[in-house]
């Protein structure tokens, strides 16, 4: 195992980490590498194992099996306080008996810094999070957003090279979330910190991450850049979890020259890019994002379906059209809201899209290597 230490320069490396509570599997054996400075998000519904993974990384939960390397050294059994990992907790976990200043000073005091260094360090991060005026207040005298910023400051003040964040924005309202996302992103770029971020909000994950690790049922479903997951989901689950997705079941009719032809309901043939490893005659799912449709006969390269509009809905800059195929399957299409006039329910329209924007998802579950 020691040989591996020199082989790579991963910031974090997890190998076959697993955890069970009683008969409940919290995390199936899972492996993951994180590069220095990377912002990686663990995304998934509740109960998918993302928090368990995070807690094991922090050292707050002991794994049943597997190993954890931090900066190339085996840290599986290192006590929490020696790991030097920063963590931001879901409900902030600010010490209610300490002032904002003392909360932020806490990690520095634990590191036996001099009083002058502590003062300097705390004041610096306080000004970064715009809370210099609140140094002497107690946490309960702060608003939710302010508490969140204190939690971030407390974590950032000792400049840990890895920060774990467990749904840190979960309790904030939309507006605050947006500004805090920017704040965290800034912290990430300014400090060059590696961040492992847990969330169940796909937009947050898309917006902030270098890579997203999508989790489902105590295991990693798919891991990749936001683009990978958005445009090349490898499962219906992944397709559905990130953004809206129209899933149309079909059968592969032909596969040649990097192109697939899939026959969907109503005998409509749909062209798509080949994803390899698909045989003619195989049952697959075809995924099209609602925003990739063009309303009316566009140019495209030929993919088109006839649908009946059930309900148009203006959601600000875009209008969402709830439609169905003649055979009954629901389809959602998205178009820019161009004016007050729109299609009435019952209208028959044609949707067209390019085959490059058509993703074929196999039904064979691949085992992740």
């Amino acid at each position: 195992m020691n040989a591996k230490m020199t082989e790579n320069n991963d910031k974090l490396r997890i190998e076959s980490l697993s955890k069970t509570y009683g008969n409940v599997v919290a995390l199936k054996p899972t492996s993951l590498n994180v590069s220095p400075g990377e912002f990686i998000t663990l995304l998934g519904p509740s109960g998918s194992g993302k928090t368990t993974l995070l807690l094991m990384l922090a050292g707050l939960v002991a794994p049943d099996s597997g190993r954890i390397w931090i900066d190339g050294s085996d840290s599986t059994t290192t006590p929490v306080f020696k790991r030097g990992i920063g963590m931001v907790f879901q409900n902030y976990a600010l010490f209610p008996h300490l002032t904002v200043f003392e909360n932020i000073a806490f990690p520095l005091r634990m590191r036996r810094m001099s009083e002058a260094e502590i003062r300097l360090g705390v004041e610096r991060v306080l000004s970064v999070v715009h809370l210099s005026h609140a140094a002497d207040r107690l946490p309960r005298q702060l608003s939710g957003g302010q508490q969140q910023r204190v939690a971030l400051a407390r974590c950032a003040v000792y400049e840990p090279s890895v920060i774990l964040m467990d749904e840190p924005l979960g309790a904030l309202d939309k507006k605050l979330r947006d500004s805090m996302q920017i704040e965290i992103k800034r912290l990430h770029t300014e400090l060059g910190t590696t961040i492992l971020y847990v969330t169940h909000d796909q937009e947050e994950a898309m917006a902030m991450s270098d890579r997203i690790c999508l989790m489902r049922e105590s295991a990693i479903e798919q891991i990749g850049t936001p683009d990978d997951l958005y445009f090349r989901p490898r499962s219906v689950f992944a397709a559905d979890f990130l953004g809206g997705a129209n899933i149309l079941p079909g059968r592969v009719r032909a596969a040649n020259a990097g192109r697939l032809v899939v026959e969907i309901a109503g005998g409509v043939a749909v062209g798509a890019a080949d994803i390899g490893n698909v045989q003619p005659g195989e049952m697959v799912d075809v995924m099209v994002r609602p925003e990739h449709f063009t309303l009316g006969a566009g140019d495209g390269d030929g993919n088109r379906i006839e649908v009946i509009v059930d309900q148009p809905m203006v959601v600000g800059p875009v209008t969402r059209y709830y439609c169905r195929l003649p055979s009954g399957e629901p389809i959602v299409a998205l178009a820019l809201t161009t004016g007050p006039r729109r299609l009435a329910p019952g209208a028959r329209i044609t949707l067209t899209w390019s085959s490059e924007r058509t993703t074929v998802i196999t039904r064979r579950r691949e085992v992740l290597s």
Partner: protein
Amino acid sequence: MSTGTRSQLSILSRSWGILPAVFLLLAVLVLPTVRLLGSSFTDASGAVSLEHYARLFSTTLYLNVLANTFTMSFWTTVVCLLAGYPVAYFLATSKAGLRQILIIGVLVPFWTSVLIRSFAWIIILGRRGVLNQGLEAMGLNGIDIIYSFWSVLIGLTQAMLPMAILTMLAVMQQIDRNLQNAAATLGARGSHVFWRVYFPLSLPGVSAAGLLVFVSSLGFFITPVLLGSPKETMIAQLIVVQIDEMLNWGFAGAIAVLLLGASLVVFYLFDLIVGIGSLAGERRELPPRAGWFWTGVGKSGQKLTAAASWACAFVAEALERIGLLKADLAPTQTSRGTKFFAMAVIFLIAAPTLVLVPISFSGGASFDWPPRGFSLQWYESLFDSPLWKEAILRSVWVGLWTALLTTVIGTPAAFALSRQHIPGKKLVLAALLIPMVMPHIIVALALFYVFSQIGLVGTSLGLVLGHSIFALPYAVVTMMAVLRNYDQRLDHAAWTLGASPIKTFYRVTLPIVKAGVVTAFLFSFVKSFDELTVALFISGGITTTLPKQMWSESLLNISPVLAAASTLVLAGVSILILGASLFGRRKSATN
């Protein structure tokens, strides 16, 4: 928090809930106490006179005994906090199932009379007692601590530990365990996590427990007499003598006033420094009377606590570094040493009662150790005696009525108090909590005065009223703890769905806070079931409760029948609690 609809309601309709509780307090606590006070200012002919007080201060006896009482209570408090803290910590951090079983262990002393427990201690600590026989069997020298300061301290500590533990536990269970995790990720080793985060957060519980133990200990009169020497005489004993042997109730009142005055001083200081609300788990918002002096005291108190926490943290860290303490525990894990200590304390709490079990099967006729032979004769005589049967039934009966009354009165009070905007809320809360810190003997005496004039002495009603006063604060505090976590928006939702306030209460609120109501009910029941002092004074004739029956029986003869009665109650209650918790668990599993 506040909504428009609520602020439109008049103050009365918001605060009616506290009225029954306030009325009960006035009628059963305040008026009798004032009468007691008054009687101490009259002479035998009924004329206003200071003769009792002149006598009280004509000798150093009463002040000396008061000083004794304070010293004894002080040390009892110190030991209770030191021994009880790790137990409460262990309970707070262990799994619910284990915690329930251990709490049964902690509660064991409640099921036997304090007098019988004192005799059990005599059996354990005596010259030829369990402890010394054991030591001699191991080839060691026996120890001689019975009838001294130490044996009284042991007896009082054992009597007070359950309350200290449960009070601290209530606060500790509210501490967010993530704080310990957070501290650890920020680089704090185990010693620092505990001493600089957990410990300061648990301090309100510690101070509340300290006050309760201290003030309750002030009123003790059985344990010091049986386990101590005359040097451990406590003031309540002198009160009892004046009532029983001298029929000098006025002078008894004067001594009681002395004790009451001393208790109130302690109470006042506590309120200034810590805040009375902490007894109910309330967090102190601002210093109540921000005079420079007390603000200063408060501030320096905080500084002192912080400094002490630091010092402890570094000592503990040093111990960790030289390997005496384990350093690599998860931050919320309890060390093996703590577990062992906690189990040992729980064992000691239960031990005197458990000693009674073998004695109850003794073939001999006295509390001998080891018991001679085996027989069921004591159980037989227990069941043959209508007195015991009646006493048990009476105790259950009075307990149920007390629990019912306090729950019915305490629940609306807790509702009213846990919502904002009631004028004088702090004052009402403080008043409701006063019975917690009133030595029972004073209330018993005050009630005896008043009840004897209206013929309530020797009636179940008198007992229920007397017990309710002591049970009420526990019921209110329990309910308030539950209601603090209750989301009032649920009520609002029900209203918008067309439910009237009363229907909302029965269909939405009550089912959700049911657990709290049940706990409050049980607490009150236990309080009444175990109560001796009031029963001693105001039960009489046919209305004998079980503690009173045990008491009068043991004044006549220390026979194993007492051990049999204790064992029976212990077994019954344990089965009941276990059954209830099993039932509760099964129910929650099916949900």
